[in-house]
């Protein structure tokens, strides 16, 4: 039987590392992560806090893309569209209707879920490259639609919309950058826990089954069409929430911030972080935000070339992304641990 897998994610299970059982190891990493995240707003300058906030926002957007591509096997080069819809939903609510920023996230989530679900329906008929092209068309279309005179009254046309950065509530001694960081982290934790639970659930197994073998999945009684379009909706929801957060963080939205280059960046973040890896998306977010800056640092004129070379090197060193590399190292450590234990 020949089965062509488009996405390979298998890695040996990380049973134990250097004698420690996995739960203990995981808990240590988790606690360390929390400590680092909690100290960041108090030791770094505002600009770096802002950048890390953005990286986490990108990570959430990439997580949305990963649910679709990594776990459900549907390609998308158009997630900048959902990011834009989320961002504009937040901006229009705050600027046009004076609604508190707290409510923009659920609203962006709902709007993007509906958009994603509806786009997922025709996408059911398209596979691989055809789906990539259709979503790419969406990414190209969105800036033009946002600029068009039909919706100019709402979107502010080419000018975009400026919004005011929210201040910390309850009189917390934080400036707006610090508060936005805390807010983003809180939202991110909810989103990541949600994604983790979704993937580990019965539904998540259905998604993975559809990715690995749609025919077998439908033979097992999985409603392939429903799950595929639902995944599209959930994926758009995640990216839309990220978009709304991004609008808050930058406090400005304009059509040209959401070109297909954003879609390509999200896709790069997905692959570099690791396809079908939830924690890998954090690395992806950092990569998407910082590597272009680093490349520019090397050489102004050749920034694009340096970026390309870094990207190639990363792909050579980690063909399965950062998550794949970590899995590989962990499994090596496990083997060594076993060998020395004997």
């Amino acid at each position: 039987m020949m089965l062509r897998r488009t996405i390979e994610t298998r890695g040996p299970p990380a049973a134990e590392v250097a004698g420690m059982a996995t739960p203990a190891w995981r808990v240590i990493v988790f606690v360390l992560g929390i400590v680092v995240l909690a100290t960041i707003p108090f030791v770094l300058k505002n600009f770096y806090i802002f950048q890390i906030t953005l990286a986490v926002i990108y990570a959430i957007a990439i997580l949305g893309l990963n649910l679709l591509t990594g776990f459900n096997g549907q390609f998308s080069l158009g997630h900048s569209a959902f990011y834009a819809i989320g961002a504009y939903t937040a901006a229009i609510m705050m600027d046009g209707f004076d609604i508190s920023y707290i409510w923009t996230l659920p609203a962006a989530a709902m709007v993007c879920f509906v958009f994603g679900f509806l786009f997922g329906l025709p996408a059911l008929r398209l596979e691989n490259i055809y789906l990539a092209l259709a979503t790419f068309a969406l990414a190209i279309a969105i800036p033009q639609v946002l600029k068009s005179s039909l919706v100019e009254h709402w979107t502010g046309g080419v000018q975009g919309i400026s919004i005011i950065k929210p201040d910390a509530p309850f009189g917390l001694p934080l400036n707006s950058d610090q508060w936005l960081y805390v807010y983003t982290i809180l939202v991110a934790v909810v989103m990541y826990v949600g994604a983790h639970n979704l993937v580990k659930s019965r539904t998540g197994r259905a998604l993975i089954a559809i990715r690995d073998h749609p025919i077998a999945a439908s033979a097992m009684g999985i409603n392939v069409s429903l799950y595929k379009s639902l995944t599209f909706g959930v994926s758009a929801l995640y990216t839309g929430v990220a978009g709304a957060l991004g609008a808050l963080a930058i406090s400005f939205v304009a059509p040209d911030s959401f070109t297909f280059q954003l879609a390509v960046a999200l896709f790069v973040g997905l692959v570099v972080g690791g396809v079908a890896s939830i924690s890998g998306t954090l690395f992806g977010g950092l990569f998407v935000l910082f590597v272009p800056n680093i490349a520019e640092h090397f050489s102004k004129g050749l920034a694009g070339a340096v970026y390309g070379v870094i990207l190639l090197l990363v792909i050579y060193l980690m063909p399965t992304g950062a998550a794949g590399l970590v899995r590989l190292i962990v499994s090596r450590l496990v083997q060594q641990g076993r060998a020395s234990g004997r």
Partner: protein
Amino acid sequence: MELFLHQVLAGLATGGIYACMALAVVMIYQAIDHLNFAQGEMAMFSTFIAWQLIQWGLPYWLAFGATIAISFVAGVAIERVVLKPLHNAPVLSHVVAFIALLAILNSAAGFIWDYTIKSFPTPFGNGPLFEQGLMSKHDGGMIAVTLLMLAFLYLFFRHTRIGLAMRAAAANPESARLAGIRVGWMTALGWGMAAAIGSVAGMLIAPVVFLEPNMMLSILLYGFAGAVVGGLTSPGGAVLGGFLVGIVENLAGTYIPVVGREMKLTIALFIIVAVLCVKPSGLFGRPIVTRV
């Protein structure tokens, strides 16, 4: 009716550009089984090489031939150096490698030849082909060369041993290897040919859109669209698809009032998606059949 005919003719002229690019896209799809996002930038880079050769005083057709040869070698080299090491990586990593290539070529071209717009000579002359003046001689020449390339490719893939071997290597690498075909080199050859065809496309397009590092971004998109509408497995379909996209784009811009100039691209793409929803493998493509 007059306006309609004029728009169709103008659409055919721009469609010629897309058809050219679509042919290059399909060519590489045949060889490597996925779309190469760096294709447009490869063509742009080749065109810059041709421009440089002409600047150095070479006659047009000599520069034309030399550029094709250089592009072919460069295409093979890119496959060997950049993509061969990724042989076993997942498909998505390949796509990222294409994106990296795109960034490198675009930025390098801007660095070497800067971002000012350059004009590129045409061998066919600039006068109108018919009296109405909607289609220039260059447009006519471009369409003729595209059709010529198509015929050449058809003969190559249908009637030569190496063409057959390339098709086999793309369709079923394992079986092809067992039959004694050097699959790796066939892929490299495919890249070389795609780069060569891309260079021809670039040199034909450049007199119309002018030469600069970002000239190919939207054209490649139309090329993809044309290729997908026509069917990625059919070079003839791709060329026809390219013309169709050109015509549809022009007609939509003229007859749908909201669309106007800026939304032309959007509408064209949505029509394409609509076509795909009805016929998922393109108008002339073979339906995808997978073994279970």
